[in-house]
């Protein structure tokens, strides 16, 4: 049963940047800088929480840090029309180097930092729920926020004018511009939303799930999110399926290690799963087309 909780934890770390990436992709920007933004957010969450002994401040700091990376990304990619991959990857390296330098100059340590002054984002205990205890209790606040955000995303996407504008900006920005709505503004708004989500994800990593900062601790989660977003290509369901499959396979791989499977093989699981899904998706739509 533990695999369920473990999946939820893994999922939360990926789901937020996936959601954020979906917002920006709707508006026509693939966000490559998720990894860097997440890492910066993780660092600043620790910083904020440490200074003020308040996880709220940690969250705030995290969001601001993520915002910084996202705004640079948006400026280069939207206004200067620079290559998104270059800027995204450059920002990821920047975040990695900068957090290492800051770790040393702010906390005077190398590699990692932890302190009892850091306040963690609390878990929610909903009281005794009987058989549902294992399913619902003691999940981090962020887990609930994430679930709320997924539903909120679905709502905004289909039922609000903002969702409509977002898709319009992605599909045909000129049509939106001539309707008197600035597509640039909409894109920036999507980037801001993404920044908040990735900020929360970073904070969850360092002061939610854990209570420490370690260099490069985002460990490729931002990339996985990017891959899921590309995979889903704006389709809410497919993206969600990819993310959940990844989270589950990751947790499954970890769990199977306890049964003695070689780690280098179990670590492959999530990647094999996505590869299989990709090929299935491709071959299926090819067959459908062939049939006519």
């Amino acid at each position, binding site marked *: 049963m533990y695999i369920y909780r473990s999946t939820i934890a893994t999922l939360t770390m990926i789901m937020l940047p996936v959601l954020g990436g979906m917002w920006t992709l709707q508006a026509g920007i693939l966000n490559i800088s998720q990894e860097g933004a997440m890492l910066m957010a993780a660092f600043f969450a620790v910083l904020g929480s440490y200074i003020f002994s308040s996880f709220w401040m940690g969250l705030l700091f995290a969001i601001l840090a993520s915002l910084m990376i996202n705004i640079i990304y948006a400026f280069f990619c939207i206004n200067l029309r620079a290559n998104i991959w270059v800027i995204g990857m450059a920002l990821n390296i920047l975040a990695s180097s900068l957090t290492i330098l800051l770790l040393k100059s702010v906390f005077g340590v190398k590699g990692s930092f932890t302190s009892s002054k850091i306040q963690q984002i609390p878990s929610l205990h909903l009281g005794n729920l009987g058989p549902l205890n294992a399913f619902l209790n003691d999940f981090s606040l962020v887990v609930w926020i994430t679930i709320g955000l997924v539903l909120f995303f679905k709502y905004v996407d289909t*039922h*609000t*004018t903002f*969702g*409509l*504008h977002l*898709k*319009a900006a992605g*599909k*045909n920005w*000129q*049509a*939106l*511009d*001539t*309707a*008197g*709505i*600035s597509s640039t503004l909409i894109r920036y708004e999507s980037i801001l939303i993404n920044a908040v989500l990735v900020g929360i994800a970073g904070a969850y990593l360092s002061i939610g799930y854990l209570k420490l900062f370690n260099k490069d601790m985002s460990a490729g989660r931002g990339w996985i999110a990017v891959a899921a977003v590309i995979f889903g290509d704006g389709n809410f369901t497919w993206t969600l399926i990819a993310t959940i499959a990844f989270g589950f396979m990751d947790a499954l791989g970890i769990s199977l290690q306890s049964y003695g499977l070689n780690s280098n093989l179990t670590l492959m699981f999530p990647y094999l799963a996505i590869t299989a899904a990709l090929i299935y998706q491709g071959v299926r739509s090819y067959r459908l*087309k062939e*049939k*006519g």
Partner: protein
Amino acid sequence: MKNAVEFENVTKKFGSVTAVNAVNLSIEDGEIHSIIGENGAGKTTLMRLLYGMYKIDSGSVKVFGKKVRFSSPKDAIANGIGMVHQNFMLIDSFTVYENVVLGFEPKRNLSFDRKSARRIVKELALRYGMNVNVDEKVERLSVGLQQKVEILKLLYRKANILIFDEPTAVLTPQESQLLFDILKKFKESGKTVIFISHKLREVKEISNRITVMRNGKNLGTFKNEEISEERLAEMVAGRKIPKLSLPSVDFSKVALKVENVSLVENGVEIVKNVSFDVREGEVLGVAGVVGNGQSELEEMVSGMKKPTSGKIVFYDEDVTNLSVRARRERGMVYIPQDRIKTGLAPLASIKENMLMGHQNKKQFLGKLAFLKRGNIRSFSISLIEDYEVVCKSPEEQAGTLSGGNMQRVVIAREFSHRARFLLVSQPTRGVDIGGIEFIHKKILKMREEKIAILLFSSDLDEILTLSDRIAVMYEGRINYLCTREKSDLTKIGLAMLGMKR
């Protein structure tokens, strides 16, 4: 009479190009005012300035006597101005009503009120007699219907000044006629219509007043009754345009034979059992409303698509399943309908664009697949000169050229092959009058050289000018096939709408 719009000394530059040069122009309230001029004359730019898409460099604009300064279309819309663009500003994957309300959606609390949006759009369509299914996705609509969606957008936003940028370029004569009726209805209901076109006949037909533009300047505004079509043509082109004539040739030898060709895509039969032949020295013109299978037929002849069934025979050789390259090697030359999507790589240089299709020739391909750069350069320079392409150098990006010049690049490249068969589609779409004349002459010169020519065009005038025989496609079938002498405009128009011959 009150003026709806007044331009005073308006100037707009793009880099070193002056697109609009000190234009003064007033448009009266409640009139249909046409602006006519060649491509690149500055008509569209002037309208985009009015619509707030570009910022004015100098000069001023008054709307209903009030001086305005728009920084975005939003301001223009707020002042009752609406514009139907040449390239439709529609989102293909959205439904009709979503497209219509975009930017001005009815809301209930914080949500998008889809129900009332649907209702309002439906009512609007009904009131103006536009038969559109508001729940249909725009990508599934014909071009004519898409234009109606654009018009619905303006009505929805309650625009009083309606700008139409080359609205008839994509329509059949009958559809154009319907559009004119709508425009006249607008005028009667007190709206001001600005109509941009380069087709003299249309302008003469519907306008109250006509303004001629050339090279970014206003050459004068005339009342419709006071100016003749010939005089207008001269002003637009800046010189007299001679008429073309078709010398008669002997059409005995068949070059291309299309036999019972069909195409099924996504379960839909797009081309149905089409057969025809094209003979040496003959121009076969294919007309039809966009989306009736002409594009697919065109692509099957060129080799970009393979037919589901049927045969294409070229000089007694079955070429149905040959690759594009093999067909090119046999002398089949192709000018595609969409130069930006198919005929060119806009981001590549003119030189690179001119090489395409020639790259396997000995003249350009050395040992070990080395390209002979010197030859390529001199080749492209000579083509630029022969076809009078206006550009700075062969290294310039093709996409920076005007539409007419881009088309010259395509034609120069294709005509420089040793052709035995010419497939031409929409050769003069978006090309200025001087360019049209040039291109028509080149095509007829090929005809004189006894090359078989298959011409697709949605411009009936063009078909009638160039073709020896005329075919009309409707719903994937050839609905009409007749020599030019025996055909007339009404019959062709009816065939395009699916009536029996």
